[in-house]
């Protein structure tokens, strides 16, 4: 990062201070930077030593745990009107190339939006959109929270850097969301309509529910999966970890490979196709079925692995591979 970029970001994060105080701080860093360069450091190294602009600003504002009574602090979460960038125009594309501590984007028109966010900072990230198309690209961004809500006929593509681990909260009523490859924390997605798909992602707990849409997480590896399909389709990839809980009320669900200690499959109507790791002898299998087709036989193997299946009107097709 260039010093000027670093300084501009710092200045942004110091937005809660008086102008003169902010100027003093910028002068202070300018002098530090010049001294570092004079001592033989490169621009890149000098800037790297300062740390991330957000962290530097935070330390200054907090006085390293020694509050400075004279300084005004930025307003707490949700109150910082100054940080709000509001645009009421009907733009085809908005490109944000700056330092923001939070992004809340809300669209109501049927528009295309592209957000290119190249800076490195801590974000509280909320997008809600009704209509149009939104493409968000991130490079080197540290996330804290991601909260995405896309409304009707929206299309959203999120590209996240590979080494970040945001917790994601997604609610989609139409359109599509694609989570590009990378490491995620816990993902929670509720798809009322529309489609959610993922690239090659690794995540902690994944909660997916769909009322009518399509969830394709075949590129995902998750530690625990909770999926509920009221109608619609869920197509899961590999699930390895402690548990997979799949509930299909109507619709269709499937998983490439479930390698979990506990697997629970509930099919009320609809169909589930799953493949499980290991042999059927490796599992304690409990089956409860009525008017349904289910390929499983109940057995008690005294094993650590369990598979519980409840199938009512639908079909469960479970295969083993091991």
């Amino acid at each position, binding site marked *: 990062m260039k010093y000027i970029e670093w300084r501009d970001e710092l200045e942004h994060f110091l937005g809660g201070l008086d102008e003169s105080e902010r100027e003093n*701080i910028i*002068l*202070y*860093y300018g*002098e*530090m930077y*010049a*001294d*570092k360069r*004079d*001592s033989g450091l490169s621009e890149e190294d000098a800037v790297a*030593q*300062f*740390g991330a602009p957000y*962290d*530097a*600003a935070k*330390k*200054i504002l907090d*006085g*390293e*745990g*020694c509050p*400075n009574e*004279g300084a005004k602090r930025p307003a707490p979460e949700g109150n910082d009107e100054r940080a709000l960038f509001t645009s009421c125009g009907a733009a085809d594309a908005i490109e944000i190339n700056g330092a923001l501590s939070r992004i809340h984007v809300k669209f109501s028109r049927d528009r295309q939006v592209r957000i290119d966010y190249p800076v490195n900072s801590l974000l509280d990230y909320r997008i809600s959109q009704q209509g149009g198309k939104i493409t968000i690209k991130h490079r080197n961004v540290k996330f804290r929270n991601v909260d995405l809500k896309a409304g009707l006929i929206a299309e959203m593509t999120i590209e996240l850097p590979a080494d970040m681990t945001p917790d994601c909260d997604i609610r989609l009523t139409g359109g599509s969301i694609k989570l590009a490859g990378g490491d995620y924390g816990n993902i929670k997605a509720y798809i009322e309509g529309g489609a959610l798909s993922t690239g090659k992602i690794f995540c902690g707990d994944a909660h997916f529910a769909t009322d009518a849409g399509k969830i394709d997480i075949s590129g995902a590896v998750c530690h625990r999966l909770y999926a509920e399909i009221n109608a619609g389709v869920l197509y899961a990839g590999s699930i390895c970890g402690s548990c997979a809980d799949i509930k299909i009320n109507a619709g269709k669900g499937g998983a490439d490979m479930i390698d979990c200690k506990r697997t629970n499959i509930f099919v009320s109507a609809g169909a589930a196709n799953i493949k499980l790791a290991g042999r059927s002898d490796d599992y304690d299998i409990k089956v409860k079925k009525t008017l349904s087709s289910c390929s499983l036989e109940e057995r008690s193997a005294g094993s650590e692995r369990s598979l519980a299946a409840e199938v009512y009107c639908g079909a469960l097709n479970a295969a083993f591979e091991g």
Partner: protein
Amino acid sequence: MDVQIKKGVLDACVLYALKDGESYGYKIITDLKDVIEVSESTLYPILKRLESSGALETYSKEFNGRLRRYYTLTDTGRKKLAEYRQDFEAIITIYKRIFR
């Protein structure tokens, strides 16, 4: 480290770095490097605090075609440093009794 203790230690270190005369931000950090690691962002509030409490005086001087801010101890600052010294000696005595 406890915030209050840390605050005291950092203030004392910065005062100490100025005991032999004027200095500037980068030099203070460099001089203290072997004693305690102080980042630029940590130093700023300390300098500001010490200045507003009257322990420091600041002025700008030209250096290499640019202005540099210098800091120097006032009498109050010198007194404060002497007090810290006494406090620390007392702490060391207590420390030796308790932990050795």
